[in-house]
Each structure stands twice: as structure tokens, then as C-alpha cells.
């Protein structure tokens, strides 16, 4: 798509582009290149000298069980958050789509958690479920669960999942509601005339028609879990206990902190970049397809 009416000027367009290009080069391309370069270097303990070691940092990385643990944690965490937040959001959106008068008000009352900072969301949830002072930890204990997210890795992962999903339902709800509202009534009425009950209509007609939205949201949630949940994890568990909530991004942070293992941290950054670029590519193929509809 191109404009036909354009402006003349040789120098002006470069001047207009200069601020963004300058910032992008200094704070994006330069550090990204550095990350790639550093991932091939090995620094001594004092950061005084470094030597080129090829793929050694990557080889070391893929020999470390902690890295596989972080991968597995990220995958489990992303799946849990996606399933939990999308099913709750879809249920709420289906309810709000029933032409009810107050749909607008409910929308307002459901979308605000999106605006809460991840770290703040983490603090809210650890406060409710803190093993010694959390008001919801007590009922859990009365039910016979030895609840302690500060010591039990599985409990910790459940807690960060709930805090993450709490924030993400708002986003999914908005997109599911928009998706539901764009399904023509006639399709649903036709199914009703054919005798399909509401439950059947939902699973055989409405849900398949929503699949582009569902797919889009899966990618968005994966990116959210990769990056934005850092604040939640750092506030709730600090990656623990025993690395049970250390995601890939948390590893990058923890390994490179205080000038620790910069080469290994950089190698992890590069792997993350590759994963995100792949996700972006998938997302764009989907958007192209959507345009053709």
C-alpha cells in the first residue's frame, strides 16, 4: 500500500526519522549486537579480559540441568496461565455477550486488573496466600493442605500462575467479547432452528469461529509469560524455592547479575531472541490470514 499524493523534500525525511533511528540504534541494535557478540566470549572472574570461545557458552548452557529446568518451568507456567486465563475469560465473555443490559458496566469492572503492575499483582497474591499471615492460607490448612509457597515449589508455581492469570483475564476477555460480538446472529439462530441446544451450539459453532482470536491470544499469553511475569515472580518467590519458579528470563537476570556469568547470560538472551522472533513470525502469518477473510 502506497500513498499517491506525497511531499517533496530531500533532507526533511531523514531529519524526521533521525530521533527514532538514533534511539533504536543506540538502545536496541547496539546492545542486541553486544549480546550476540558476548555470547561467544568468556570473561575471567574480574571482567578484566575476555577470549573468544565460539559456541562454548551455548554448549555449557545445554549441559546445565538448571537450564532445562527453567525451560520446563516456563513451558508448564505458560500452559497453565494460558488455559486458566483463557477459559475464565471465554466463560465471562460468553456471559457478557448474552445481550444483557449491563454488559458495558461489567466490561469496565472486569478489565481494570490489566492496569495493575505485575510486581504489585504479585504482592497482592502473596499477601493473601502468605503461609503465616495470609488470610486464605488458613482455610487451605484447615482443609488439610500443608500450604507453603515459600518452601514448596509446586505451591509457589500455583501461586504465580494465579497472580499472572488474574492480570491476563482482562485482556483475553476484551478480545473474546469482541470476537463473540462479531459472529453473525443469523448463524446462531440457524443452528437453534436446527435444534442445537446452547451447549452444543457453543462447541460446534461459536468456539470454532473464535479460533483466530484464540490463536492470537495464545501467542500473546506466551509472550506475556516469557517477559511480563518477571515482576510477579520476583515479588512472590524470587525464582525459588530451589528454582521452581525460575523462568528463562529469570535465569538471564539471575545468571548475569552483579557481573556473574555474562557470557552464559548473553547466550540465553540470544536464545530468547530467536524464540520471540519465531513467535512474531507465527503471529504475522496469522494476521495475514485474518486480512483475507
Amino acid at each position, binding site marked *: 500500500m502506497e*500513498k*499517491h*499524493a*506525497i*511531499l517533496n523534500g530531500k533532507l526533511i*525525511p531523514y531529519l*524526521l*526519522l533521525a*530521533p*527514532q*533511528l538514533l*534511539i533504536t*540504534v543506540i*538502545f*536496541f541494535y547496539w*546492545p*542486541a549486537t*553486544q549480546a550476540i557478540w558476548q555470547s561467544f566470549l568468556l570473561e575471567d572472574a574480574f571482567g578484566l579480559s575476555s577470549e573468544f570461545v565460539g559456541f562454548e557458552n551455548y554448549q555449557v548452557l545445554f549441559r546445565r540441568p538448571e537450564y532445562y529446568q527453567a525451560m520446563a518451568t516456563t513451558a508448564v507456567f505458560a500452559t497453565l496461565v494460558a488455559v486458566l486465563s483463557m477459559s475464565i475469560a471465554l*466463560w*465471562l465473555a460468553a*456471559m457478557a455477550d*448474552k*445481550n*444483557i443490559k*449491563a454488559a458495558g458496566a*461489567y466490561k*469496565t*469492572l*472486569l478489565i481494570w486488573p*490489566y*492496569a*495493575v*503492575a*505485575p*510486581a*504489585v*499483582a504479585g*504482592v*497482592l*497474591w502473596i499477601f493473601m496466600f502468605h503461609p503465616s*499471615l495470609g*488470610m486464605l492460607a488458613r482455610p487451605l490448612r484447615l482443609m488439610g493442605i500443608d500450604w507453603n509457597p515459600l518452601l514448596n515449589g509446586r505451591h509457589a508455581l500455583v501461586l504465580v500462575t494465579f497472580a499472572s492469570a488474574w492480570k491476563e*483475564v482482562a485482556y483475553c476477555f476484551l478480545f473474546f467479547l469482541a470476537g463473540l460480538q462479531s459472529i453473525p446472529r443469523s448463524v*446462531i439462530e440457524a443452528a*437453534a*432452528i436446527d435444534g442445537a441446544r446452547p451447549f452444543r451450539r457453543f462447541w460446534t459453532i461459536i468456539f470454532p469461529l473464535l479460533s483466530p482470536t484464540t490463536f*492470537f491470544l495464545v501467542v500473546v499469553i506466551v509472550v506475556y509469560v516469557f517477559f511480563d511475569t518477571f*515482576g510477579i515472580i*520476583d*515479588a512472590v518467590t524470587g525464582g525459588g524455592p530451589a528454582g521452581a519458579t525460575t523462568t528463562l528470563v529469570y535465569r*538471564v*537476570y539471575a545468571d*548475569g547479575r552483579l557481573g556473574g556469568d555474562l557470557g552464559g*547470560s*548473553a547466550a540465553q*538472551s540470544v536464545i530468547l*531472541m530467536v524464540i*520471540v522472533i519465531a*513467535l512474531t513470525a507465527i*503471529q504475522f502469518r496469522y494476521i495475514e490470514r485474518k486480512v483475507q477473510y
Partner: protein
Amino acid sequence: MVESRRYRNIGAYTVLSLGVLIFAFPVYVAIIASTHENATIMNGNMPLLPGGQAAENYYRTIFLGGVRSAREPVGNMMLNSFIVAMGIAVGKIFISILSAFAIVYYRFPLRKAAFWVIFITLMLPIEVRIYPTYKIVADLGLLDTYTGLILPLIASATGTLLFRQFFMTVPDELLEASKMDGAGAFRFFKDTLLPLSLTTMAALFVIQFIYGWNQYLWPLLITTRDDMQTVVIGIKKLLTTQDALSEWHTAMTTAVLAMIPPVLVVLLMQRLFVKGLVETEK
């Protein structure tokens, strides 16, 4: 055609109302905690009704900060967060409206290249290049400065793509008419394009303000001085003053304060917020 709705609607109202209550509960608990003494919270039997310490807690937190370790007033942290969020929102709108204008309305060598250079940054957040970026900011002497907090976070393509998309929908006739009136590029931009872009700008502003206010990892790394902390970082520091002695009442008061600006923005500018979310697709 579709079944009569009355009973199903009662079900829908019930589910939605329960949803609203469950989602609001964590925030309700935080607000309640911000009105009690620390001792009441620490014994694990905090009531579900407000206590009498609200004025005291909020006054202490805003003007004095925590009791033991983090003595930085939260009011000051809120100001830092506000400056950073505004800087990110305004800065991003400024650089991206200019670059989109150049890409859409001019033809020049390397135009496609410039577009791709910007475009590639779209989905690579700062987390994937965090330590090298830290080093650059340190080398530039920008640690503990607002510039250092803001600039690396506006290096992304979202705004440029949004404005480009919008400019493409502006009819060519407007530029032709403007040219016929003898207006130059600057007057076309200022008198025609800018007024048309106001809604898009506002939507982008809402999204970027929230994004900036809620930043965590970047400010955590590059602020070492307490008086440069943002409020989101401040909460975490209040809690890591070692478990048993954490000042939960101050932390929860701070959490409530930290939520107010972005949540207000969403509630008051809901339509712009939704527009921004849908159009930037995050």
C-alpha cells in the same frame, strides 16, 4: 428463535457478578490491610473490615516512607513513576509520529530500509538485551537518571506502526487541497494531520503510560539511589527487609497507591484504552 433469555440471563448476571467480586477481592484485601496496624496483620487474623489506621498509614507512607530500612517517602517514588511514565508516553508518541510521517509522505532512498530497521524492534522487549543495554546506559553516565530510565524503553516500533496505519487511511485529497492552499509540509502536518491523529495519539498515550508506570526489571537494574526509585520497585524493597519483620502495612499501602494512577487511567479513559489495546495488538 433462540431460547427465551430470562432464566439464562439470571445465570449470566450471577456468573459475571461473581467474576467481578473475585477479581476485586485481592485489591479489597490490600485496601483493608492499608487501614490496619502491622501487628494486626502479622498475627494472621486480619479482619475483613477497615481498621482505624488509614490516615496514619497513608500519611506515613506518602511523606515518610518505611520505618526501618527503606526510608524513601512513597510520594517521591510516585513522582518518579509519573515522570518516567509521562516521558515514555510522550517520547514514544513524539518520535514515532515523526518517523511515520516521513515513511508515509516522503519518497527517499533507503525508505524501505528505514522502515525495516524500526519494524524489527516490534516484539523484542528490553529483557532480551538487558545487560548490554545496562552497560551502554552506564557508559553514557545515565544510571540513576530519568533519561536512562526512559530512553531505552521507547526504542520500539509499536507507535510508528500505529501512526503509519492511520496515515494510510487519511485521504490523499486532503494533502492535495492543502498543497493547493499553498501550505508546506509543516503546515499540512500541524493543521491537517495532527488534529486528525488526536484519537490515535490519545489511545497510544493511555497504553504507553500504563506500560511505563508498570516497568519493573529495567528500573530495578539502573536505579541504585533510593531517591530515584519508582514506586513499583519501592514495594519490593519494602518486602525484602527480611520476612518476619516485613512492614506489611506500609507495603500494602504502597501497593494501593501504586495501583491508583494506572487503574484510574483505564477506568476514566476506557474507550481510548480499548482502542489502543486492539490497535497496537499489545
